[in-house]
């Protein structure tokens, strides 16, 4: 029986598109810092951009979708950690500070 196996890419096109997206999101970031919307909204947008950029690098540069499940899980966890932490500290910063006090 022939197995269906997805092979690593040999086309540069998805890499170019990914790079353009990363450059665009990077150039967008300073505008956010300069005060687009409220403080909480900016934090949420920044969290989303971190996740999108990390996801793009993992998916198209590392080819995480083809990687071993453990590698996929490590990348997913690391990329999700900071956006989640930003959201939590934005809304529960005081509580987190009390919890992290010695």
């Amino acid at each position, binding site marked *: 029986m022939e197995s269906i196996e997805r092979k690593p890419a040999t086309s540069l096109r998805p890499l170019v598109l990914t790079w353009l997206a990363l450059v665009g999101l*990077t150039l967008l970031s300073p505008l956010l810092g300069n005060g687009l919307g409220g403080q909480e909204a900016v934090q949420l947008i920044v969290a989303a951009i971190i996740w999108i950029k990390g996801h793009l690098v993992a998916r198209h*540069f590392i080819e995480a979708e083809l990687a071993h499940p453990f590698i996929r899980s490590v990348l997913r966890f690391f990329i999700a950690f900071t956006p989640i*932490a930003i959201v939590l500290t934005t809304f529960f910063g005081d509580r987190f500070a009390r919890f992290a006090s010695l």
Partner: protein
Amino acid sequence: MIANTMSLPTTLGDAPPATGRVPGNKGIWVGICCEFVEFLVLFVVYFVARAHFPDAFHSGAERLSQAAGVVITLLMVSSSFFIACSVTSLRAGRRRESIAWLIAGLVAALGYPVAKYLEIQWNLAHGIDGESGIFFTVYYYLTFTHMVHAFWGILGILWVLTRHSFGIYTADEHSGLEALASYWHATDIIWLVIFPFFYVLA
């Protein structure tokens, strides 16, 4: 017997493979996991400090050169892109093109320490050093640690480029090049997290 017991039915279609490939080799992924753990600890330190001193982190980011942060980020993503192109070109059998992409990746990667040096000179000229407050202590510690990891990556690029120029990597066997690429992409992902910490989240 054990193998038969352990085997599970596989799912076909667009779902991720149940047993995927290891990009590069297992050793580099042990290193990448250690690198991720190290930076996760530092990120926790950042969030704890930020939660305790929100005003210092709010005003601190405004004193740094945002242009320096943007330039370093563009260098990192571009270098990562060039090295990904090097791997893909070699897979397609285009060895010379692959070497050219790798050289481009090295040049962009070398721009990082140069930009960092200029940024530090700018900081010192504006009275920003490691004793300027909690924000800048965390900033210097995290960015210098990342710089050290990038330095290992640059040495790795030089090593792989040397081997590549001697024709050691082929379209069928290039795990060394792919291992380097995986490490550099992981280091890139870490910078993509650090960048907003200090240059955007004012």
